[in-house]
């Protein structure tokens, strides 16, 4: 197994095919990264908004009654 190019520049150029190969690589990497980043962001946001809702309900974590009734609290309070 040998490095196929004499220099990094040469590898970037790929004997004229560089633009094609590297667009393919960059777009692929971008799409794959997006596919991982998106759920991670969603996960974080979900945790955050659940925590915020809990806080709005009075900060009590009630394991016994997960479906505790919540007297409708004004929505405007939660943007702290």
């Amino acid at each position: 197994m040998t490095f196929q190019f004499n220099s990094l520049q040469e590898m970037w150029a790929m004997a004229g095919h560089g633009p094609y190969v590297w667009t393919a690589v960059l777009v692929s990497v971008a799409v794959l990264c997006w596919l991982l980043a998106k759920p991670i962001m969603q996960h974080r946001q979900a945790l955050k908004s659940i925590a915020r809702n809990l806080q709005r309900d009075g900060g009590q974590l009630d394991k016994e009654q997960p479906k505790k009734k919540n007297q409708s609290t004004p929505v405007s309070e939660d943007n702290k």
Partner: protein
Amino acid sequence: MASGRSWNWFHRMGSPRWFYETTGRWLPWLWVLTLALMITGLVWGLAFAPQDAKQGNSFRIIYLHVPASFLALAGYYIMAIAGAVGLIWKMKLSYMVMKSAAPIGAALTFLALFTGAVWGKPTWGTYWVWDARITSMLILLFLYLGVLALQYAFHSREAGNKASAILALVGTVNIPIIYKSVDWWYTLHQPATIKLTSAPSMHPDMFQPLLVMILALYSFYALALILFTRAEILQRESKTGWVRELAQQAHPAQSAGVTK
């Protein structure tokens, strides 16, 4: 009844919480595996694999193109099976998996098309030809987009799930038909001037990195699917105790702020 116990595993697996906790344990390993395979495969393929006699360096796109194409196709079946399980056994988790599989599959199909098109320019001199396989890949993209569009068109989560599950199933019946008919159409209309399989047997030096990349994408697929599903679980189960507990652990400061 005896069968009662043997179905236990099935029901346990259907529990979002079980899924969340189990996959939580797998995740670190999957991350390591995916990144290792991906980096190895890419560096090997882009820098160390010998260049193709006919196509030169442009052939290196194969290391992205072929794995993406494989997973795009396999992903559809995963999505459809998840949908079927959801419809038949009314399993919530299964719908969540289906919903997660749709964007991943669509993105990979897009990648297969994109890398193929970019590859086509240096090799065939054009970005696009109406080849049988390419056409059926395009149709696959449309099927994915249909499932996605349907999912988001409904306000009610349940209705969206059921509708897209039915569509995915109908699509599954159609994929082989589509593939066969497009294949037949192509041979009917025009002699095979361009063959995707340029070389029937690949040199092992070229093939080994390809194998690594295929494995890398499988592992990536599993990782992405699990991540998407976990995010979905959190959103849907936000009213259950265990998710609330998780949220509070993750953001203790916010929850504590109230008592002051």
